[in-house]
């Protein structure tokens, strides 16, 4: 698998170069109107100017702060609620229709309400991000708790585990392992919450930058904002992958099931 990847990346880079060249050629000859489609060199100029002048940093910092807060709070709340409902099936059955209803609701429409409640600052974006992150984690944890193997559970009880020890050694790891499987989505959701929140009303953040640029029909700055967000999302995702590898060593991966070597 690794060798295949090694051979692929030059082609992937070449593909990017071809697409950029195509974009450049089409917009330079105005086959595609550059007013609507921007021009790669001008986008690059905007990016350079943003980073050189340092203008981007406070905006990026705010967006990342919102992402982080939404991710941490949403994940913690999701784990707690998931474990609670997972361990009290009666309560889970009672709340089931409400949980389904809230999950089915397109929660982005809550953004204006949060803006009214928490103002145009960081708070309203974090709140939106939390509602997006919470449900993914919540359902995963609930599932994780319900799917704890009854044999593993009986074995732990027979080895003398108290209720608290069962929670700590069996339920908690089962729940958190499912959290990690949804980590990529959770970070993505927190990021979406931050950017959409900013886009709908704010005074700072990368979403705000894009909104400003749109207001003056500066398509190159809009695209530059999107590029910054995309790169950030990719970096966050890579970070998550590293954390995941470190924390889930116990878990079989397709590559490691065949070789039984300890790390």
């Amino acid at each position, binding site marked *: 698998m690794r060798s295949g990847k090694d051979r692929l990346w030059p082609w992937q880079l070449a593909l990017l170069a071809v697409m950029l060249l195509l974009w450049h050629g089409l917009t330079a000859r105005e086959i595609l109107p550059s007013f609507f489609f921007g021009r790669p060199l001008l986008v690059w100029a905007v990016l350079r100017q943003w980073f050189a002048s340092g203008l981007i940093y406070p905006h990026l910092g705010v967006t990342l702060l919102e992402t982080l807060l939404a991710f941490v709070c949403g994940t913690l709340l999701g784990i707690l609620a998931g474990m609670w409902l997972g361990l009290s099936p009666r309560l889970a059955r009672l709340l089931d229709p409400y949980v389904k209803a809230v999950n089915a609701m397109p929660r982005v429409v809550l953004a204006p309400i949060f803006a009214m409640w928490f103002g145009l600052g960081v708070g309203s974006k974090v709140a939106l991000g939390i509602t997006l992150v919470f449900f993914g984690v919540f359902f995963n944890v609930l599932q994780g708790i319900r799917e704890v193997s009854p044999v593993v559970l009986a074995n732990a009880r027979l080895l003398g585990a108290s209720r608290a020890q069962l929670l700590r050694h069996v339920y908690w790891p089962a729940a958190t392992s499912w959290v990690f499987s949804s980590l990529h989505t959770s970070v993505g959701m927190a990021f979406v919450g931050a950017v959409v929140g900013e886009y709908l009303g704010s005074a700072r953040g990368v979403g705000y930058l894009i909104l400003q640029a749109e207001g003056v029909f500066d398509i190159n700055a809009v695209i530059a904002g999107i590029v910054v967000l995309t790169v950030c999302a990719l970096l966050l995702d890579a970070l998550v992958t590293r954390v995941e590898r470190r924390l889930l060593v116990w878990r079989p991966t397709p590559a490691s099931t065949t070789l*039984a070597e300890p790390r």
Partner: protein
Amino acid sequence: MVREVDLTLGEGEFLCVVGPTGCGKSTLLNLVAGLLSPSAGTVLIDDEPLTGIHPAVGYLFQADALLPWRDALENVALGLRFRGVPRQEAEAEAHAWLQRVGLAGAARRYPHQLSGGMKKRVALAQVLAVNPRILLMDEPLAALDVQTRAQMENQLLRLWAQDRRSVIFITHDLEEAIALGDRVIVMSAGPSSRPVGSHVIDLPRPREVEEIRMTPRFLELQREIWRQLRREVHAGQDGAGGWPA
């Protein structure tokens, strides 16, 4: 599921239970383990009625029961940790047990990095580490291949001979029951199953399972018990369950 069960497990006795599938062998074991409570009657341990899980009872399951997020050493130390033994002490003890089952080198492997036989040995070390006086085993070796199984049977006998805990060993394999046990109980066919025969196995110990299987006394015992078992199997096939092919 089971009824009219009147069994007494002697101190240090290796008791094997065989019977057609669906005859409630596992139910019986879960009752003794305190995982189920009987709808009628009682389970006595040291003449005390059993209420819930008893600390002197260990249970080796057929299915994988190791915590997948703990490595072999931590899994073996688990019972001791649950009982309040400090980590270092528990892990030293666990290491000794891993050595006894021949897995000292695999201490830091996670269950998914172990083979089926290795997992069973870790599970055995895990249950023995808490030093149970009564050891319950529910077809623990059924999922293993023939060679690994014979190897495990011998290892089990050697470990058992060191301290002679009382054992209830459930199996659907009559040969295994005779090779391991001091006594073999035959259960009747379900749905309301009960023990119908008790056979003392007077084979000498220590035993090597592959060799003992060839001895005339073994074959004689096997014929004798099989005659009874076959009746139950046929009854079972007419009724609910059936004997696996």
